[in-house]
């Protein structure tokens, strides 16, 4: 694990890329183009039982439910997303 090389920190506002053909394929479609906030920084996780290579740093990103669906409950969805799928977003834009 190497958290120091991670680009974002907890609380940073981020936006998920719509497409990223070279990125880790495991970013669900319902997140594409959506805004969230970094909830946890996991860094580069080595998981040799699961992967041949090492992926970019991993974050848990918190999304408001209302950002992702038409449901207006004050609930939240926390999803693990790799760094190459994220870019910085202005918090209130």
């Amino acid at each position, binding site marked *: *694990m190497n958290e120091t090389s991670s680009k974002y920190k907890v609380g940073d506002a981020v936006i998920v890329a719509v497409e990223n053909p070279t990125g*880790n*394929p*495991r*970013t*669900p479609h*319902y997140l594409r183009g959506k805004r969230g906030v970094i909830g*946890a920084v*996991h860094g580069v*996780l080595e*998981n*040799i*039982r*699961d*992967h*041949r290579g090492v*992926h970019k740093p*991993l974050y*848990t990103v918190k999304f408001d*439910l209302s950002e*992702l*669906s038409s*449901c207006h*409950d*004050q*609930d*939240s*969805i*926390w*999803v*693990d*997303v*790799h760094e190459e799928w994220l870019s910085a977003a202005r918090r209130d834009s």
Partner: protein
Amino acid sequence: MSGKHGHKPFEGHMHDYMAHVKAVEEDLEYYRAKRFEPRIIYLLRRGVATFYDLLKVRAALKKKDHFFQIGKPRGKNIEARVRYLEEWLDEYVKGIALVSARAVEGMDMVTEDNRKERGDYDDFFKIKKKDHHGALEERMANLEQDLTDYQELLEVFVQALIKRGWATRSDLEQRWKQLHEERPWAGGVIVAKAWSDPEFKQALLATGREALREMGVHQGKVGKLVVVENTDSVHNVIVCTLCSCYPYDILGDTPWWYKHESYRSNIVQNPRQCIKEMFSLEISPEKEVRVWDSTSDVRYFVLPERPAGSEGMSEKELANLVTVDSLIGAGYALEPAQLREREAAHLEPEMPRLRPD
């Protein structure tokens, strides 16, 4: 054959045979198409065990040399036959675990390879699952035939691995024995300790697997473990919208619905409604629902709230209150009175199926 059926916990006498049969159909196809056949294809491509090895082994195989011994139903009535199908499915799944990467030398296969082979990233490669239909009798007969066929391929595959020298029969026999050993379910043990020992709970929430290593329970190996705590103000729920990621290396197999498309799509669209409709669980409006979608290398489980009425119970007693569903957020841990009701009705405690790597 022995072994408890994992995904239909707390069942004494069966009432809905069709539901049991459908659950076996669904799980059997899952394990065949997503767990076993991708492994064969992978090894086939690399020449470890080819089609021709399988054909030759099949032609020479005598019944007395079979690795797997499948018994007969314990009766002719429907209940005995359904139980037989469930137990056979459990044996089939253990058989797949037997030929997992860890057990077989030279089977250099990681989870990501499995996902590629079975078409998680590309529909073109998707292995088709069978459709099932018909009345109960017909479906049971079809399942018996499918299990016979699938078991035969597994038998031949194991024999081919032995013949080609990728595994020895005695190693496989030893592992087969281990796969049938009964031990207390780690989920219950871990949660009971977290309820009883505040220091352990803090360590578990802060460090995940590290804390498990210290308490000497099987800590598993797949990914980083994050444990999320249910409190007065937060109810956590776990899902994997992309496939069915779950800390199965620690907790055993998931309940059947965890892999189901309807759960995986509805829980991130409208969590409260999904929890209410699927599990009859109404989450208080005072609480925030947090859904954790484990899409990558982190595996999650929920630390449920300690139930009312459990004061003064020992860790061993507390462990019996922990259900598989409560570690996903699809239920609460049982109150002691609820456990007593279930025991009075002779309902079996749940014991999730050990899942292949």
